[in-house]
């Protein structure tokens, strides 16, 4: 399988012009393989419900997991991402339509949502909940152990986002940023309202890298999106998916899956939410030793 597409430039020098579209199929296959593997591993695994914990006291019936803003961002981003992937890859498989404009407009929309997300998550949300700490990693390992040993042991409780969520987020972040940066450069090779076309903005070699990076992040995002959707529709995760629609999870899920120490809600919640992120970190750090006992 060819990894890259090459061509001879007008001076007959070989230049990279992009990734081989075989990689698109590789990405799809990888996605499917992951889903199948995971489905088999977790098949028939019955989960014991944890007894209502004593701490239940003072925990509201419904707990806000995703603010309106966060949800709006997520779904707008999702729309943009789907538009980008469809316009990018459907023509490759032979279904022709005028995709270029939709593609770059969706790209610009994606950038807008991400800019919003960055500020919103830093200023309004609990930024640090996405921060991967050693404890998150430990819990991640336990989770993996459970999955692979198909053990019935209770999955470890996590902060607002488990390490699996966090790593997924980081990976998508990296890929998306790569695709965006290269995509913006590529907009110099087409007609947009923003600037004059200039295909010679970069050297042939640099353009080659730009196209390859854009292509690689593009195909990788196919796999990421596939797995994301897969989890979103798995029965045991639907409550999470719902929370991305309605914003709330109910107390039982909270108590079952989350460690109140690390995702404070109810009485402590306000404080946790309003506390400057620095404070939040200090707090969690202070707790970690006791945690590891």
């Amino acid at each position: 399988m060819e990894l890259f597409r090459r061509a001879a430039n007008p001076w007959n020098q070989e230049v990279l012009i992009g990734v081989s579209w075989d990689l698109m199929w590789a990405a799809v296959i990888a996605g499917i393989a992951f889903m199948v593997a995971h489905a088999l591993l977790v098949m028939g695994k019955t989960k014991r419900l944890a007894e209502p914990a004593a701490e239940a006291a003072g925990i509201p019936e419904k707990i806000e997991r995703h603010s309106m803003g966060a949800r709006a961002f997520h779904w707008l981003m999702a729309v943009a991402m789907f538009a980008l992937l469809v316009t990018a890859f459907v023509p490759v498989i032979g279904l022709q339509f005028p995709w270029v404009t939709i593609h770059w407009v969706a790209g610009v929309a994606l950038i807008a949502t991400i800019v919003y997300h960055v500020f919103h998550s830093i200023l309004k949300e609990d930024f640090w909940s996405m921060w991967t700490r050693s404890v998150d990693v430990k819990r991640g390992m336990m989770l993996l152990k459970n999955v692979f040993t198909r053990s019935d042991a209770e999955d470890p409780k996590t902060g607002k986002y488990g390490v699996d969520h966090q790593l997924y987020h980081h990976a998508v972040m990296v890929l998306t940023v790569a695709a965006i940066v290269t995509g913006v450069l590529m907009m110099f090779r087409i007609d947009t309202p923003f600037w004059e076309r200039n295909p010679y903005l970069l050297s042939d070699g640099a353009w080659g890298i730009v196209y390859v990076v854009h292509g690689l992040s593009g195909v990788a995002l196919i796999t990421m999106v596939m797995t994301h959707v897969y989890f979103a529709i798995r029965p045991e995760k639907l409550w999470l998916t719902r929370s991305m629609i309605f914003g709330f999870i109910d107390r039982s899920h909270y108590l079952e899956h989350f460690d109140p120490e690390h995702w404070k809600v109810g009485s402590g919640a306000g404080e946790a939410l309003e506390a400057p992120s620095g404070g939040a970190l200090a707090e969690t750090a202070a707790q970690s030793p006791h945690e590891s006992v």
Partner: protein
Amino acid sequence: MATIRDMIAPFELFQPTSIGDAVALLGEHGADAWVLAGGLDSFDWFKDRIKRPGVVVDLGAVEELRGIRASGGGLEIGAMTTLTDVELHPDVRARFSILADAARHVATPQIRNQGTLGGNVAQDTRCWYYRSGWPCYRAGGNICYASAPKAMNREHCIMGASRCVAVNPSDTAPALIALDAQMVIQGPEGERVVEAKDFFIGPGIDITRMTVLEPGDLLTAIRIPDTWSEATFYYEKVRDRNSWDFSLVTVAAALRVEGATIGDARIAVNGVAPHPVRLQHVEAYARGKTRDDDNGRQAGELAIQKARALRHNDYKLSLMKNLVRRAIRGMEA
């Protein structure tokens, strides 16, 4: 690998004698097969060694693809009918003279004796960056050399561009659009009929093709309905040389004129976009107007509303404007 632009690289040649065999062969060899009509566009590609099909399907021996016959009040012209035969055919001259006129404007007598109507509408663009074998968008690459800030693009497009700014070079295409012609296509899934104006596609839809013809498809005939039979026609091709030259801008118009008033109109322009453009908004404007210079000017301005010049082809705006103006007004002011 060094480059040389001489000698045709070897290929396997098939000379089917029926449309069925031809379509079968195309199906069998898919993208590796090249359809050879008159060959005047193909041989450039072959001799420049830029396109190297493994299999060439020469339609020369398929008799059913030749000839002009009456059909439903209009005419059906076999795709392999030579441009000379189109130009000289009495019915074409008497009823659809704009098509004879267009055919006469193609290249040279030798080329018209061999070049076919099907080949003329299906020919590839003449963008010299693309024709130089450079890896541009149209060639499957990721760049348009012709739209660079200092590129040499006097012969490129002023509208309808999408990444690629090449233009369609066909002289007969605008005439066929003006005549509401229909293209009959034989494909793997059988026959389909496409309106001339939809037969030509822009790079937005598929940057590697000029028409809806996909690998495996065969353009078998072109039908001219009687709609515009003996209408008032206007055809003008502006070029640098009066023989063997492609159009800078070409206008083709079919008008129904009562007295001095335009009843209905079809106006198509080529050389301004990646595909021949039918100017429906200008047609709408022209309906019910008298054929005079004022309306001509208006129509011209309307025609170039959406046009945008590249570095070296600003003149095409004036040219398109003036040619549309003439189509409405007539040659004399």
